[in-house]
């Protein structure tokens, strides 16, 4: 592996619980030996261990169907893992789904207010939080539109805003930009990366796009085909805020190439 030649790239093949051994107080989310076997016998995850600190943006890339999304469902408590242990404050998780899942019958403002509403926050306060979040994702002026009149990218922004209202310290992203076109996706990557910088949350992002992963993250993990295991880890050294031109940087291409090589290996 040529990875060793680059000083800033730490590429290691992980076996077991190496990562969890280093326990620090800044850990916002940690997986410890997570295994998941569905009732039908499908083994989705096998001994997955890693953690995400505050101020870290970790992306998991892997072939489709490798159990990446399952990992987020387990982190959020939507699914119960069959072995291992997750530690995270589940009351304070932001979870952005693959689909925008906006409620069709609510305006954008009222959709963005939903979580605050479910948490019993008073009307004036939740309106203020929602407006703030809407401004942050660039949807100002669309407050009173219904989801049906928004494009896919705009719906995704609204979904992001909805999650931002509660200012969660842990953010889970389940391939949120998979359904939008390339240009929109790149814009959304830049904006997400800006939000991460501004809000300083711990981010766990799932995708199968390598350039998206390298562009936004502080660390990229490669997951193998089912049953999903973490097979490689790369630190991403570029400074924030990252500019769009970074995508054409030689170092960017080199790192992407390495992730890609690992990913191809993970496929078989």
């Amino acid at each position, binding site marked *: 592996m040529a990875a060793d030649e680059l000083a800033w790239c730490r590429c290691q093949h992980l076996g077991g619980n190496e990562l969890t051994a280093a326990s620090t107080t800044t850990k916002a989310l940690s997986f410890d030996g997570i295994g998941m076997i569905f009732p039908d016998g499908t083994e989705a995850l096998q001994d997955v261990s890693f953690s995400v600190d505050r101020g870290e943006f970790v992306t998991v890339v892997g072939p489709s169907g490798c159990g990446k999304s399952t990992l987020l469902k387990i982190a959020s408590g939507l699914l119960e893992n069959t072995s291992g242990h997750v530690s995270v404050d589940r009351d304070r998780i932001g*979870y952005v789904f693959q689909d925008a899942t906006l409620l069709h019958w609510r305006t954008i403002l009222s959709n963005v207010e939903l979580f605050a509403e*479910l*948490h019993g926050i008073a009307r004036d306060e939740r309106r203020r939080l929602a407006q703030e979040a809407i401004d942050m994702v660039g949807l100002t*002026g669309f407050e009173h*539109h219904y989801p049906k009149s928004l*494009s896919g990218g705009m719906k995704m922004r609204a979904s992001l805003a909805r999650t931002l209202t509660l200012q969660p310290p842990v953010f889970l992203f389940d391939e949120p930009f998979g359904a939008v076109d390339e240009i929109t996706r790149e814009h959304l990557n830049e904006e997400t990366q*800006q939000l991460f910088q501004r809000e300083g949350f711990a981010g766990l992002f799932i995708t199968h796009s390598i350039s998206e992963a390298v562009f936004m993250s502080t660390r990229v993990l490669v997951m193998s085909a089912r049953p999903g295991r973490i097979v490689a880890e790369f630190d991403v050294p570029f400074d924030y805020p990252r500019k769009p031109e970074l995508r054409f940087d030689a170092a960017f291409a080199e790192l992407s190439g390495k992730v890609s090589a690992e990913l191809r290996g993970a496929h078989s």
Partner: protein
Amino acid sequence: MTTQEAAETGAIESPLVGGADPSTMHAGAYREKSRPRLLAEIVLPPLVMGALIASLWYSVSYGVLDERRRFLLRPPHQVIEVGFLDWDNFSEILSGLWSSTRVAMIGLVIAITIGFVLATLMSQAKVVERALFPFMVTLQAIPILAIVPLISFWFGTGQQSRVVVCVIISLFPILVNTLFGLQSAERGMHDLFTLHRASRLTRLRKLMFPAAMPAIFAGLRISAGLSVIGAIVGDFFFGLGDVGIGQLLRKYANNLNGEQLLAAVIMSSALGVTVFLIFGWIQNAAIGKWHDTSDSGI
């Protein structure tokens, strides 16, 4: 979901953070049809068809039927003269129609209430759905004529029995549509409510019921139409008390009042159409802003 596609074509992407300008957005930007084309394409076809039907009607009245048998199909102008323009005759039809409308509405309200309650219970517990559903299907499958004797046996031959017919005939669509609607909220939306620990009642109020609205309205329109039919059929069999349109139809047929018979049939149909339009209008006012009615074909 075709809503997705409508959104793609009806909206533009916001250019940059904070740079989105709502004034550049307008949904449904297709050009309106010009007035002459509108006339030719929309108004003319039904007019031509109407004229065809009228001429066929005349040719049967005057060409096929001889003088002695013309009472079987009176020509249109006689139906209008005797059935609609003679106030004594027309007011009789109107009051019969009103009586049947009341019966239909009472029946519909009862059916809606029962349908909502049952559908809500069924949506909350699978076991209730499994227990009730076969019986609802069975009830729906009974031909109404088969239980007419039973209804008169239990409820007599008056207004009450007509309402019972309306309820039986209109319960199923509203029940099934409400249930289907309550179950139609996407999995991801349910996950949102689960993640934020919403109570059962909150989930029902803020997710399941709003999501069910389009299906509920579709059910309402079907049920309302059926309820009108139920009222007329019920009136036909249970004639005690108020004279409804069913009683009048029977009377006109027995007395060979062909003109009034046809006028009453036309007015019954007009009632059905009116009810359908009213519910369509209510639906549009209630959910038209966020739901594309044309999408679901409802």
